[in-house]
């Protein structure tokens, strides 16, 4: 839509003005890592951060989500769709915004998911652009999420002593309207902005040893690759990779009954395709046996099935699965091994 500029010294003031819109969640330092948490004061936030342990997914697809209340006897169900409050995600990386865009596609697909759509409707996203790699695990350039491609209301880009603001929605416009300390982008600002972008692009490079098109082909051919056995041999089945992924959305549906044994609620809770009983049915038949098959499934859900189903890569390059893996399985290495194999090495 349009660009504006805010001096760095004024960002706190703007942040304060957002509080009236609803709760604000942003990146905070926690011991040696970062997490998304509610932020009450601007200073609590760390806007320069490596991806948080969990993506902000927990705010729009909660780990345990209430579906409805029930009574066993007499059979009855309560209101299913709750009113949610407006909230703001502040300082979201472009990789995590790409993750939200993936979830949008999944939950808009018929039958559409009212819980997700309802939360999403109440959500305002203020992104922040990374001007350099967060660490060695990211592979955002390979999947093109190191630059912004929509999905936010406002995007902040560090251009020295100020932030450029890309205002991308009506919601975003309302957040800057009438703020005297936010100005239109001048020629000089624009030059700084372009320069910053140029400098940034020099720092990023394709982390995969091949273009996406080739990655795509290597997955086409790689279903029976020995790479999966290697990954499966190392995998300890801890499910961390799927727990931290911004585009994993598998779940279970569970009931909780209160002490009177008659009232209760049904929830959906995150569940992981890396668990050994994920595809196992009551008769004992396991339709995805072995860690190799389960890891392969995870990778294919990011690089192949999502492309077939939604025409979209579901890897956002955030690097979380690699960062968190107890067995040091690296997404970049796995993809590169597939590429190498395809080239006949």
């Amino acid at each position, binding site marked *: 839509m349009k660009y504006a500029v805010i001096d760095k010294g004024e960002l706190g003031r703007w942040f304060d003005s957002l509080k009236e819109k609803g709760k604000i969640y942003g990146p905070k330092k926690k011991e040696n890592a970062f997490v998304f948490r509610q932020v009450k004061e601007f200073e609590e936030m760390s806007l320069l951060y490596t991806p948080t342990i969990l993506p902000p997914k927990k705010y729009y697809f909660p780990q345990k989500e209430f*579906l*409805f209340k*029930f*009574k*066993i*006897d*007499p*059979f*009855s*169900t309560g209101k*299913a*769709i709750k009113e949610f409050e407006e909230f703001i995600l502040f300082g979201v990386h472009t990789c995590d915004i790409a993750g939200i865009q993936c979830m*949008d596609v*999944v*939950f*808009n*697909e018929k*039958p*559409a*998911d*009212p*819980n997700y*759509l*309802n939360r*999403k*409707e109440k959500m305002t996203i203020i992104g922040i652009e990374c001007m350099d790699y967060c660490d060695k695990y990211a592979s955002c350039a390979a999947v093109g999420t190191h630059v912004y491609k929509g999905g936010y209301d406002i995007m902040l880009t560090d251009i020295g002593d100020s932030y450029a603001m890309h205002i991308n929605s009506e919601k975003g416009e309302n957040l800057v309207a009438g703020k005297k300390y936010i100005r239109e982008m001048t020629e000089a600002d624009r030059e700084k902005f372009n320069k910053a972008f140029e400098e940034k692009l020099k720092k990023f490079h394709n982390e995969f040893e091949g273009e996406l098109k080739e990655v795509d082909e290597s997955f086409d051919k790689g*279903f*029976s690759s020995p790479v999966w056995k290697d990954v499966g041999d190392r995998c300890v089945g801890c499910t961390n990779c799927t727990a931290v992924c911004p585009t994993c*959305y*598998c*779940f*279970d*549906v*569970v*009931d909780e*009954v209160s002490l009177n*044994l008659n009232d*209760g609620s*049904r929830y*959906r809770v995150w*569940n992981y*395709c890396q668990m050994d009983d*994920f*595809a*196992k*049915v*009551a*008769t004992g*038949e396991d*339709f*995805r046996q072995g860690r190799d*098959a389960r890891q392969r*499934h995870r990778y*294919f859900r990011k690089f*192949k*099935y*999502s492309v*077939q*189903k939604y025409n979209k890569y579901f890897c956002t390059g955030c690097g979380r699965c690699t960062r968190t893996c107890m067995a040091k399985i690296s997404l970049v290495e796995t993809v590169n091994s597939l590429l190498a194999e395809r080239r006949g090495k």
Partner: protein
Amino acid sequence: MNHTDQAFQEILKTSPYKPMKAKVVRAHKYTEHEKFFRIELDGKKELGHAPGQFVQVSLFGQGEAPISICSSPTQKGSFDLTVRRIPGGVMTPAIHALEAGSVLGIRGPFGNAFPLDKMHGNNILIVAGGLGIVPLRSLINYILDKRKDFGEVQILLGCKTPKDMLFGDEVAQWQKRADIKFNCTVDKADPDWKGNVGLITSLIPGVTLSPKQTYAVVVGPPIMYKFVIGELLKKGIPEHQIVVSLERKMKCGLGKCGHCQIRSVYVCQCGPVFTFEQLKEMEGECHEGECHVKA
């Protein structure tokens, strides 16, 4: 978001997770492990299903289980389920505890259905192994009610022993009808059994339907597919006319939770009914019995 305001408001009105209230109007045990239920939705609402679809049976406090609808849509005002009790399971023993008058929750119907449009006018060969007769009963009764819409019809039924036979009263009727062929076999006979003994595959060579005009619908355990599909191919029935129904773990029925996925396919939405042609594309992720055919 691609929804108009109005469409968005529609979506928010209700939750696809919320079951409808329903009541058991008839319940009886067919075998030691399998129990039949006739069910009415609140207000005698029609379920509106097609043969091959399933529902999620919901018992609050216990959870949900996907169960095939075993009655034909031509049966109005109610529908039928038949449930095998799995020792150590949560839902199936709880469902077995239901009796006439019990209240339960129903979501659905879910899934695609047997390709009736394509099957119309063709010969139909139905191959049911074990519990496979449950979803096939819906199809069989539909075909019998619309008999003139189909060509020749032959039913092959296999069970472990005569005691395991489901829908015995109806099977006796099918056996008597002149407008269908019916064959039955058991793996192991008992002294009263007068029919065939042997695996269901042994009945296929005797099938005389002209293969190119025949749709074969096969439902049974994965291991059965391996052998039956091989025999059907030998008969010359084209791959896209061999139809199966798959079992997978399911939690939502909505194409979201991921449990039922085979490669990029969500069985709860795109299945559970597939042709053998489609199964072959899912190779590697489908059970070895399902797509590795023994020819």
